[in-house]
C-alpha cells in the first residue's frame, strides 16, 4: 500500500492567475521493522488542474456535446482527470508528470511539489442553483498493471474580472537579462499577480463614494438612505444609514437583504425568459417606527462567489430592501402641558400598512485568498491509499 497525501500549504483558495502549490507526499506506511514489509512501486504519477462544469437540466439548455469520449480504459496510461465526474470539463491545464518509476522502501516517504498557475481565463468556483463550476486538482497514479487511481483535491478559485493584463511578458520589460540573475527574480515574479490583484482590490474597494437616495412611495417620502460605497470585497460589511426623521410616511419596519442573482444567458435558457434565481445571503430586519435614524451592517460571507459572468451564466449582487409603511401620513401629535385634565397618549393598536421593495445593485469582488481559506469548506488536503 502506498499512501498519497496532497496538501496545499497556502490553503484551498486561490486567485486566478496565482501560482498554486501542492505538496504531494507518497509514503510507504509499512514500518521497516515489520516482517511483511516490502518496497512498493508506482509506475508514474501526474497532476493536473481542471474545472468541472455542471448545469441543471431544467434550467440550462446546453448544445449537444461533441464526440468527446469520457471513457478511460482501466489499464490505459491515459489520464483523463475528469473521469467519473459529473458535468463536463471546461478547462484543464497540461498534465505535469511528477515522476516515473517510484520505488518506496518500507517507511520511506517522498514529497513532490506540484505548482501550476491557476488559469486566468477560467470561471470562478461557483455553486449556483442552475450552474456549478468546481475546480479540482487531480493527481493520477498508476501501479504497473493496475488501473489508474485518482486523488482529487477540490479547491476554490476566485476570479478578479477586469484585471488589466500585465504589460506583456514580464521578462521582456527587463530586456537583456543575464541568465545568472534570473534565479532570484523568479520567485518574486510569481508573487506579483497576486500582489497586483490585491492592490487593485484594495484600491477599488476602499474608495468611499457616498450615494444618497430619497426613498419615496406613492404616498410620500419615507426615508433618506445613504450607502457609502457600492463595491465590496468578500468578508466586508455593507454599511448603510437610514434617516426617517424627514419622512412624511411613517415606516414601521424595513429589511435589507444581500442577494445574488444567477441569470442564465439568453441562448442557454431552457425556457425563454425564465426567471432569475435569487439567493439570499444575509438579512437585516429592524423595526423603525419611532426611529429617527438608524443603520445596518450586513456582512458579506467569505464563502460566496463574487459577481462574474461567463457565456452561460452571470452572477450579480444586489441589496433588496423592503419597507412596511403606514398608509396614512402621520403628523406627530403635539402634547400640551398644563392642561386641566390628565392626558394619556397611547399608541395606535392597528396601523394600515403597505409594503414596498426596492433593489440596489452592488458589486462584490474577491478578497485575499488566504483570508477566504480560513472559512473554506475545503481543507486543501486529501489522501488516498493505493
Amino acid at each position: 500500500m502506498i499512501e498519497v497525501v496532497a496538501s496545499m500549504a497556502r490553503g484551498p483558495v486561490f486567485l486566478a492567475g496565482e501560482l498554486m502549490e501542492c505538496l504531494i507526499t507518497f509514503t510507504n506506511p509499512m514500518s521497516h521493522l515489520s516482517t511483511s514489509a516490502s518496497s512498493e512501486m508506482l509506475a508514474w504519477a501526474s497532476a493536473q488542474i481542471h474545472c468541472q462544469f455542471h448545469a441543471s437540466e431544467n434550467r440550462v439548455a446546453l448544445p449537444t456535446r461533441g464526440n468527446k469520449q469520457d471513457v478511460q480504459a482501466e489499464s490505459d496510461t491515459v489520464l483523463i482527470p475528469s473521469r467519473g465526474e459529473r458535468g463536463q470539463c471546461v478547462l484543464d491545464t497540461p498534465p505535469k508528470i511528477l515522476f516515473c518509476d517510484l520505488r518506496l522502501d518500507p517507511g520511506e516517504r517522498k514529497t513532490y511539489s506540484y505548482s501550476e498557475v491557476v488559469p486566468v481565463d477560467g470561471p470562478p468556483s461557483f455553486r449556483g442553483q442552475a450552474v456549478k463550476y468546481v475546480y479540482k486538482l487531480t493527481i493520477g497514479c498508476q501501479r504497473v498493471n493496475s488501473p489508474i487511481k485518482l486523488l482529487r483535491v477540490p479547491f476554490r478559485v476566485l476570479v478578479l474580472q477586469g484585471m488589466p493584463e500585465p504589460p506583456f511578458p514580464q521578462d521582456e520589460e527587463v530586456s537583456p537579462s543575464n541568465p545568472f540573475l534570473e534565479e532570484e527574480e523568479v520567485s518574486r515574479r510569481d508573487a506579483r499577480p497576486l500582489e497586483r490583484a490585491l492592490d487593485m482590490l484594495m484600491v477599488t474597494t476602499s474608495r468611499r463614494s457616498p450615494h444618497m437616495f430619497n426613498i419615496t412611495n406613492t404616498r410620500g417620502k419615507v426615508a433618506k438612505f445613504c450607502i457609502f460605497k457600492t463595491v465590496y470585497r468578500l468578508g466586508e460589511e455593507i454599511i448603510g444609514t437610514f434617516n426617517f426623521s424627514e419622512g412624511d410616511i411613517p415606516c414601521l419596519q424595513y429589511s435589507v437583504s444581500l442577494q445574488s442573482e444567477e441569470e442564465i444567458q439568453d441562448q442557454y435558457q431552457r425556457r425563454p425568459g425564465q426567471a432569475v434565481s435569487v439567493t439570499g445571503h444575509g438579512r437585516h430586519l429592524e423595526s423603525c417606527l419611532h426611529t429617527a435614524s438608524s443603520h445596518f451592517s450586513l456582512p458579506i460571507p467569505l464563502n460566496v462567489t463574487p459577481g462574474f459572468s461567463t457565456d452561460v451564466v452571470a452572477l450579480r449582487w444586489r441589496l433588496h430592501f423592503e419597507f412596511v409603511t403606514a398608509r396614512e401620513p402621520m403628523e406627530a401629535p403635539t402634547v400640551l402641558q398644563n392642561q386641566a385634565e390628565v392626558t394619556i397618549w397611547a399608541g395606535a393598536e392597528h396601523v394600515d400598512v403597505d409594503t414596498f421593495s426596492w433593489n440596489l445593485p452592488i458589486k462584490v469582488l474577491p478578497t485575499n485568498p488566504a483570508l477566504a481559506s480560513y472559512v473554506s469548506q475545503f481543507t486543501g488536503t486529501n489522501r488516498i491509499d493505493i
Partner: protein
Amino acid sequence: MYFLTGWPRRLLCPLKSEEEPFHIQPSSQRFYFALVSETQISIWFSRPSVLIVSYIESVKAAAQFGFYQKAEWKPDDSMIAVATAKGYILLFDVLGGGDEKYLYEPVYPKGSPRVKVTPGYKEEQCAPALSLEMKKPVDLEAPITSLQSLQENLLVCTADGYLHVLHWDGQGSNGRKAICLTTIPFSLDLQSARAGPALDLEGVYICCMEYCVTLDGFAVVLSDGRLGFITPLSNTIIADQLQGVWAADVSDGTCVAVNNKYRLMAFGCASGSVLVYMIDTTTGSMQLSHKLELTPKHYPDIYNKTGAVKVICWSPDCSVAMVTWECGGLSLWSVFGAHLICTLGEDFAHRSDGTKKEPLRISSMSWGAEGYHLWVLPSNQGRRRKEEHSMEEDSPPHPFLRAGILQFHFIKSALTVNPCTSNQEHVLLHGEDRLYLTCGDPTQIHSTSDAHPHTHLHPHDGSPLHQPAHPDSSLSQGLSTLLGHKHWHVVQIHSTYLESNWPIRFAAIDTAGQCMAVAGRRGFAHYSLFTRKWKLFGNITQEQNMTVTGGLAWWNDFVVVACYNFTDQQEQLRLYQRSSNLDNAFASVTKLHADTLLLNVFRDMIILFRADCSICLYSIEKRNEGLGQSASVELLQEVSMSRYIPHPALVVSVTLTSVRTETGITLKAPQQACTAESIMLNLAGQLIMLQRDRSGPQVREKETPAINKKLLPFSPPVVLAQCVENVWTTCRSNKKKRHLLEALWLSCGEAGMKVWLPLFPRDHRKPHSFLSRRIMLPFHINIYPLAVLFEDALVLGATNETVLYDGLQGSSEPLEALFPYCTVERTSQIYLHHILRQLLVRNLGEQALMLAQSCAGLPYFPHVMELMVHVVLEEEATSREPIPDPLLPTVAKFITEFPLFLQTIVHCARKTEYALWNYLFAAVGNPKDLFEECLMAQDLDTAASYLIILQNMEVPAVSRQHATLLFNTALEQGKWDLCRHMIRFLKAIGSGEMDTPPPTPSTQEPSSTGAFEFFRNRSISLSQSADSISTGKFNLQKTFSMPTGSSPKGADCPENMYIDMMLWRHARHLLEQVRLRDLGCFSAQLGFELIGWLCRERNRVARVEDFVLALKKLHEDFLWPFPVIPVGSLSSPLKNGRCRPVLSTQLLKSQSADSLLNSDMDTAPPLAVPMNHTWTDSLGQRSKDTDTASSAHSNQNSPQTYDAFLSLVTNKVEEYSIGSATDLTETSSMVDGDWMMVDENSSTLSLSQAELEHISMELANKGPHKSQVQLRYLLHVFMEAGCLEWCVVIGLILRDTNVIKQVISFLDNPEVPAETVQSIRKGLLAVDTWASSDSLGYKPFLNLIQPQLQHLMESTSEQVQPEAFQPATQSSKLSGSDGLGGATAPRAEDSRGGAAPLGLTLPALEPAGGYNRTPSEDCPSEQSEVQGEEEGTYDCTLS
C-alpha cells in the same frame, strides 16, 4: 467584555412637546423604560423601541406636586413610583402588561401579494399595550433626593436627612417608616467600638443611594460629599439597627452605583474620578479597590477637565461600568478598571478636518436588556436649539420638539455571561443579532506546525523538487495572517429564533471553533461553520417550554445546557447531539435539584454551580444507541460550598482544572496531568482554588475498579488572586510546553494579566525544598485579553476602532457626523518577554531557560528576545540613579543560550539610540568579538549589522578591516546583496573617512534602522560603477577598458582599486576551482566585467588544466545529467553503479572527493579523440561582426585573438548576434529545435525499440533549460574572451558539435598560442579516455566530432612541438587495437552508444565518413539536416 459598535440609533418621540425627558429608568428585566420629564412620564418598549404610553400631568396636579424628578419600578414591573420636586411620591399602576393587546400591529391590505415581512411578526414585533393609572400620592414633606426599590419596599431619601421605607402596596402611612440619618452610628470600620451617632451629620442628608444585595447594605453619598456604607444589622431595616462605615478621606462624592456580582461600590467624585470600594470582610471597613480615571497620557487635553462624575451605570451582567461626566462623554471600564472606550478623545472628539466636536452631554442613561444597548438621554441639545429659536423669533417661546433618545449598540465577549472552558481559545463576541468569531483556527496552525517537520526529517529522500524552506515560510505566513488581519467571521443569528427569543443571553463555541450555540429568552439554537446552517427546535413548543438558566457549553458533539423546564417545572441538565434534529426526543435529560447558575465542562465532566452554593460534578459518556448516539450523565460528586460563599450570585465562574500546587505529582505521572485536580472558583473577583485532598490514605488506582472509583474529597479553599476577571486553563497537555500549558492565566483589569506558572525541577531531579512549586507573575499587556493561545504564547483580544464618516453629507448633521463608526478589531499580543524577565529578576534563570527553550520554535521568538533586551536596556540605561543590581547582564547571558543571541543583540542595538550602545555592549560583550562570532557562525547578515555598530564605535581602520573580512566571506558564499552593500560600505569609508578621526556620534544617524540606508544616503561621489553594479542587468561589456580604465580611477580612489583587486582575486579563485556557475553569478550580480578580465587571464588562470575534472564539475554545478546510453547496449558500468544517470546524488561531494573518484576511475590511459568538422558556424564569430568597433577597441588589449576572430567571421552568415538576450534565447530555442528534429527523424525512420529508448534517454538527460541558457551564455563569454579551452569544455557538456568545430577551426589561426592548441588536444584525448571508461554516454557525441578531432590532430601535429606528440602517439599506439575493435564492431553499436571504446579511432580509420556510411543513424544525419536547412555550408564542411 464590551465593545461599542456602529453608530448610535436615534429614537424620536412621536409626540411633540416642549419638555425634554431628563431621567430614564429601566424596569427590572429592562424590557420597559420609563422616561421622566417635568410633567410627563412615558413608557418605551425595548424591542421594537417604540413609545407605548405617555402620561401628562394636569396643570393642577403639577402645581401641587411639583415637577417630576425621578422614577423607580417595582420589581415585578406592575408599578412605577415617581418622585416630585415638592416631596411627593406618586405611585402609578402599570396596567395591561398581561393581556394580549398589542400596539402598532400592521394591517396589510387584502390581497396584498406580500402580507408579512416575517412570519410571526404580529406577536414579536409589536409592543404590548400598557396604560398608566395614578394611585394616591404619598407626601414626604421634603424634597426627595434618592429613590430605590427594594423588593416589597421603596426606600426614599429626603433632603431633611431622613430615610423613608415605604411599602409598594402600603396604602397610606401604615407601612411607612422613617429613619433619621443622625441616628445611624458611623465609624471607619464595623469592629471599632460601636461609635455613637455621628454628631457631624446634622443638616446632612443622603443625596444618592443604592442598595447592594450581596453586601446587604446601602452605598450612600452624603450631601457633604462623604461616602459611606450603611448595613442593617438585622434582616429588616429598623432605625436603631443600622450601622455605617465611612470611606476615609473623601469629601467630593457625587453619585454611586453598586455592582452586585463583584460586591463593589463605585462612587463618582467631583474631581472626575470614580473610586471603587469594596468591603473588607474581616473588619467591615471600606477599602479602595481601584480608581477609574482618564490618564493624562491618553487624554492629555481632557483628563482633568471632565467635571464631576454625573452617572455611573454597571452593565446588567456587572462586568463593565459606563461613566459620564458633567462635560459629557461616555467611558467604559471593565469591572476591575481596564479602560475600554472613552468618547472624549480621538475620532469621537474631532472631525476629520481636525476641528473639535461638542461632546455629547448626557442627562441620564441606562443599559438595555443584556447590555446590548445603552439608552442615553442627551441633554442641552434641545435646549440649545430652543435658545436659538427664541433668539430668532419670539412668537413661539416654547417650540414643540420631538425628544430624542440615543441607543448605543454594544457587542460583548461570550465570557462575560458564560465563562466556560470551551470558549477559551477562541474569541467569541456576541451582538444583539450576530456572533463575531476569530477567523482562522489556531488548531489548524498547530496541525501544520506539527505536520511540517516531516519534510525536514527526510532531507535525503532524494525527491527532486524538495523545498525544505517552504513549510516554514507558509507556517509563519499562516500565523501572521491569522494574527495580522483584523477580520471577524460574522454569523448572523437566525432571525426566526432571534425574533421570538430576543435577547440572546448565552453564547458558546466548541473547542475546535466550528460550532456555536446561542440561547435567548427561551430555548436555544446552534450553528455549524461547516454546514453554515442554524439548527432550531423543530417543535416550537419544546423551544418555548425551556429556558437556559445556567449557561451552555459544548462537549464534543453535544450541546450541554442547564435549563428550566416549564412543563415539568424543574431544573434540568440536557445534552443535545449536534448532528441529530434539535428535538427533546434526542436529548438526554437529567433532573437537577436546585437552580443552576453556572455550568462548565472539563474533559468528560460537567461541573455545575447551583443556587444552593454547591458544586456538582457529573460524568458524561457517549453511548451508541441504535442509529444515533446519545450521552449519559452520571452524578459523580457534590461539594457544598455554602460555608465559603456568602451569596450564590457572587460566583463569577467555576472551572475544573488539572492545576495543582504541587507540580511534583504531575511530574511523576504526566498521563495524570489532565485529571480534574482542582476547582477554580471566581468569587466576586477572588480566585479560589479547591484541590483534591491527597493527604488522606491514597487508594491505589489498580485496586479499585474504575467504575465505582471513589473521588477524592476537596481540600479547603485557598485564595490565589484578587481582582480576577477571567481565568484560562487548558486540559490539553504537551510535554514540550508544560510551563505554558499547565499554567493558569488570569486577567485582572487594570492590573493587566497574571500567570500562575509551574516551576519544574530541571532534569527531573528532586525539587529543591526551598523552591516553591508555582509562582504568580503579573505582567502588563496593552489589550483586553479575551483568549489565551497556550502553545503559541499569545493572548488574543479586541479593541474598539473608529472610522469617521463625517463631511460626507453636507450640513444636515446626521449622526454619522456626530459620531464615528465604531468597529471592533482583533488584536493579539506576545507576553513571553515579560515572564522571562520576571523569572530572571527572581533568580529563576533555569526556569526561564526551560520556558524559553520550549517556545524557541515560535516564529516570533526572536522578537520576544529582542523585546526583552530592549525593555531592560531602555530601563536601565536611562535610569537616573545607578542600579545596584542591573538585569541586563543576566538577560544577555540568558540569551547567549540561544543561537539567535548575536542577531538579537544587534537588532536591538540598531533599534536603540546610539547613546545606549556603550551600556549595551558593556553588558553583552565587545562588538568586535560579536562580529567575529558571527563570521565564525557564518551568519553574514548579522555580521553586516554589527559592522554598522563597529563603524560608529571604532576607528575607520578597524571597521574597514572587518568589512574586508566580511566582504570576502560574502563573496565566497555568494551573498550578492551583501557584497553589493559591502562594496558601497567600503567605498563610503574610503571616500571620506580614511584619515579622519573616528566619527562623532552626532554626525551619524544613530537611530537609523534600515541596514545600509545610511550609506546609501551618503554621496558616493567617486564610484560611478557602483550604480551599474546595483542595476543587476546583463551588461556584457564590449569595451575592455575596465582594467585599464579603472586604474586612472583607482588613482583617485585607492578604495576602488582595492575593491577591484578583491574582486579579481575572487574571480581567479572561482575559476581555479572550476566554479563556473558561481563565477557567472558573481559577475552578473556584482556587475563584474567578465570578458575583459578573462581576456587578461586567458593564458593564465582561464586555462583548463584538467578537462575531465572541469567537465564533471560543470555537470555537477549545472545539474547537468551525464549522457546515458541505452541499457541494452551496454550494461556493465550501469549495473555496477559507477555511472550514474542522474547527478543529484553527487551534489554535495567535495571536490577532493571528486578527484579521488576520478583517479579511481581513470584506469585507462589517456586517449585521443578524433573530431569532425560538421559545423562551421562559431558562436564567437557572430558577435564579432555585430560589434566590430568594440572588438577593434579591444585589440588594444589582445589584438592577436581578435584579429583571428575577425578573419573567420566574414564567411559566416548569421541571423542573430550574440550579445543580446534575444539571441541567447534563440540559441536555446534552436537547441529545443534539436529535440524536435530528433523526434521527427526518429518517427520517420522507424527506429528500433532500443534506439527509441536511447533517444528518449538522451532527451530525458538533457539538463534544465536554465542551465542550458547559462552555459550558452558562459560559452559566449569565453568565446569572446578567447578562452578556447573553456569553450571546448562547455561545448562538450552541451554536446554541441558546432562549438567544438568552431573552436577547432580557430585553432588553425596562427595567433592562437600553441599551448592552447596543445592543451585542447590533450584535454579532448583525456575526455575521450574518461568517456570510454567511465561515462560511456559521451561516446556517441565524441564519435560525432571525430572529424574535428581528426582535423585537430592533423593540424596540431604540424604545429606543436615534438613533445606534444607524446600523448598522441601514446594514444595511437593503443588505438591500434581499439581501432580494430571499432572497425569490426557493428555500425549501429558505434553510433548508438559507443559501446566499444572506439573514441580513439584514428583519422585513417574513420575519415569523416561516419555519417555517409550510416545515414540511418540518428544524430549525425539529423544534425546534418539541420545544417542543411540553416545554412548552405554543409558540403564544404563535410569535405
